[in-house]
């Protein structure tokens, strides 16, 4: 029988690296996605800003949308990407008022969801969500204080250069517990982190060998956790447990440490394509053209591996604002629920939002496995679809939160055009006439009744278009 994995296994692994990189979800997407919708007209600027805010954040209320619109498209991108310039004091004040116990898993999720709903820096929270789904760890193995610290790490370093982020996450106690870096010792290296670092975080299957996994594991020996303060374990380097011998990693030989391994990995052309693809799929659309990825990979490499540079480039690109990108992504439960709370300015303690996200199949801080959430069509199982409809029902019947004064829902009863107002606020004003007619007839049957008004809100949120970002 042939040796397992000593050779690179080019045929299958190269064949699979595309599929593995993109995951079964993408194979599903390729199978199910009908040809990209062509809109009758190109997107106007208001629609582009709404699209930008959904992708670079979690959507916006009409008021917030107007603020960003006043900046113009490139001003809006700048404000989103360079978020350090935006004060976020109100968010911190609001969070302090909640009286949350961050050592409790539910309260920790509430804390994060409320951040996403009320932050003045949408991209900051969206990047934390991105990193949480890529450089995964879980409450299944790491207690809330550790998961909170990791969440804060992502927030502080979200747009740094990739090697720094990777070196930092390798020292993160939650990650060290999750992928067994804390028990990685000289002579008996634990492969878990080394494997997932290359397979899931940086390169993808087909771009390293089993031997590389073993050598990278050796490089990371000596990574240790100091538990003298059990509340706050901390990384330190245990020289005695470090295998200081020569390792050969991806063709290079040296007495490498874990940091050296990261430096080698990040410089592989496959790493530039890998992270560029992950970011593009997260922000733009699921099936980028090769030349788009080539361009982003070049930006990555020439900018010192800057995540900010790649994200800026994506959010400023023609591809991002194209027809192909519009409504091209199925909203994750977090996108849908947080987006609804933001757009409708719902005042809530956060628990109904967390519960809804869970019910739709995404338990924050508890990903299903080390690859995070597959996303895309995987979000649309029948049970999840029912949960989405039932969320719309809870929102429309006032069970999720109270609309703030002056918010979209409070404008509906005042004479005007409720259908138009809802479609403008929830759907960028982009909705086919047949569907507008259905909404109008539904309301017209008894327009002054609370029943039909609430029903209209439900239907607007139930629309297929509302589930696409």
């Amino acid at each position, binding site marked *: 029988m042939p040796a397992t994995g000593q050779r690179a296994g080019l045929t299958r692994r190269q064949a699979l690296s595309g*599929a593995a990189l993109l995951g*079964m979800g993408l194979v599903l997407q390729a199978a199910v996605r009908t040809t990209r919708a062509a809109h009758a007209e190109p997107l106007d600027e208001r629609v582009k800003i709404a699209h930008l805010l959904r992708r670079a954040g979690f959507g916006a209320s009409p008021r917030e949308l107007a603020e960003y619109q006043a900046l113009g498209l490139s001003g809006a991108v700048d404000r989103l990407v360079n978020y350090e310039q935006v004060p976020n004091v109100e968010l911190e004040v609001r969070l302090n008022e909640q009286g949350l116990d961050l050592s409790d898993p539910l309260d920790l999720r509430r804390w994060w969801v409320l951040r996403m709903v009320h932050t003045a820096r949408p991209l900051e929270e969206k990047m934390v969500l991105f990193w949480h789904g890529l450089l995964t760890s879980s409450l299944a193995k790491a207690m809330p204080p550790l998961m909170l610290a990791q969440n804060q790490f992502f927030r502080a370093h979200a747009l740094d250069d990739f090697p720094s982020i990777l070196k930092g996450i390798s020292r993160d106690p939650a990650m060290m517990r999750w992928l067994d870096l804390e028990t990685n010792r000289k002579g008996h290296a*634990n492969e878990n982190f080394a494997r997932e670092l290359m397979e899931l975080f940086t390169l993808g299957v087909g771009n390293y060998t089993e031997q590389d996994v073993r050598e990278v594991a050796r490089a990371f020996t000596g990574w240790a956790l100091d538990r003298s303060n059990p509340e706050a374990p901390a990384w330190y380097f245990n020289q005695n447990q470090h295998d200081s011998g020569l390792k050969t990693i991806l063709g290079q030989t040296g007495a490498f440490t874990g940091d050296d391994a990261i430096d080698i990995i990040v410089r592989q052309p496959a790493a530039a394509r890998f992270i560029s693809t992950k970011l593009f799929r997260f922000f733009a659309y699921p099936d980028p053209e090769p030349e788009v990825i080539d361009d982003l990979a070049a930006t990555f490499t020439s900018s010192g591996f800057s995540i900010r540079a790649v994200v800026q480039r994506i959010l400023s690109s023609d591809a991002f604002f194209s027809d192909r990108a519009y409504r091209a992504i199925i909203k994750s439960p977090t996108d849908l629920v947080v987006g609804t709370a933001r757009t409708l300015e719902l005042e809530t303690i956060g628990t109904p939002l967390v519960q809804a996200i869970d019910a739709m199949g995404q338990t924050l801080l508890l990903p299903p496995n080390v*690859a995070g959430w597959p996303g895309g069509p995987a979000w649309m199982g029948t*049970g999840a679809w029912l949960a989405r409809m039932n969320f719309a029902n809870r929102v429309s019947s006032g069970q999720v939160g109270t609309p703030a004064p002056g918010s979209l829902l409070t404008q509906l009863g005042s004479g005007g055009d409720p259908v138009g107002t809802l479609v403008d606020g929830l759907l960028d004003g982009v909705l086919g006439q047949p569907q507008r007619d259905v909404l109008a007839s539904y309301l017209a049957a008894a327009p002054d009744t609370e029943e039909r008004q609430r029903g209209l809100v*439900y239907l607007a949120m139930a629309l*297929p278009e509302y589930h696409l970002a």
Partner: protein
Amino acid sequence: MLTRRSFLKRSLATAPSALLVPALFERAVALAAQERSTPVGVSNTGRTLIVIQMAGGNDGLNTVVPYTDGRYHDLRPRIGLAPETVLPLNDRLGLHPSLGGLKALWDSGALAVVENVGYENPSLSHFEAMHIWETADPLAKASQGWLASLVDVGGHPFEALNFGTSLSPALCCPVVPPPTVTSPDAYRLLPDPQFPRGEPARTQALQQLYAAYEPPAPYAALLEAAATSAQESAQQLKTLTAGYAPTVQYPATPLARGLQVFAALIARDAGLRVGYTLLGGFDTHSNQAQQHARQLQTLGDAVSAFYQDLQAQGKAQDVLVMTWSEFGRRAAENASLGTDHGTAAPLFLLGGRVCGGLYGDPPDLGNLDNGNLRYSTDFRSVYATVLEGWLGADSSAILGSRYDTLPALTT
């Protein structure tokens, strides 16, 4: 048995705008059919296959333990199971102590253990390996789940059911998506609590909105199919589970709850052909003992309750349960009191028509491949056994080739 056609007749009776309901359903099917698999006929239509995925890479050597083999103890001085603790199957192999539920099935002749299952040039990546098992293609060129074409478009909502949050790739993608259920009680469209009588009108408008969402709009087929399948299956699940009472106390674990839903559908003759669910937590890289014991206990207890319930309902002859995991684990323990990713592992087949016993050649602990087991039985032989011998389906149409089957089933 409720079919799609009878569902449609009922919908026509209740929805004033009747014309749109069949349009919704039929178009969803027609659209989806352009992109999906062709069903493969099944001749043993009264039978059910239940697939339990043990996710993470189950440590086979500590599940079906070669407890009299000195090499096993040499390889695992700390995490190896002591001979006096295993549940003996014979004088060579024993089950992990937490698998009492399966041991009882072994004693009654309902459990088959297929040893050392794998394939050539195995992958040690979770995702690549899962993909290979799910599509039955070690070269990973296939994209269709091996179970997908067993689900027939002309059937009815519960021909397949995935208990879990998203559809397993092994079941992806038949023409209309099988229901994915996590909580039977929550599996319905809820009305506005203050205006419950307004629900029919609101739901009718909802269906009209989806009917108006047409290609080339993004994800049109997916969204319509999800909406249709969800509504159909939600209506029927409630009725079906209402008429069923379990004859045993199921454990309070998600796995057991899933098996209980399958039992309800089987007891009520809902025509369940494939039930699929997943138990995670098998990726035991460190401090394996407790975690592995817990997950195996969950598995054994849930399966045992399920089987007893089926027997009491008179259905044990019509059900076959199969377990699988994407790989086994490294023969030697690691320094973290756990095991790294490995290759071949045993799997279980159980049911009223199983010929209990051991199948396949055991792994040779003296002839490892860079620390890993060399497989003996190709997993596609197990699939072929299940497809041909259990369901009466043409296995080569699904697997691309003929594989030797195991004599593990009575006819």
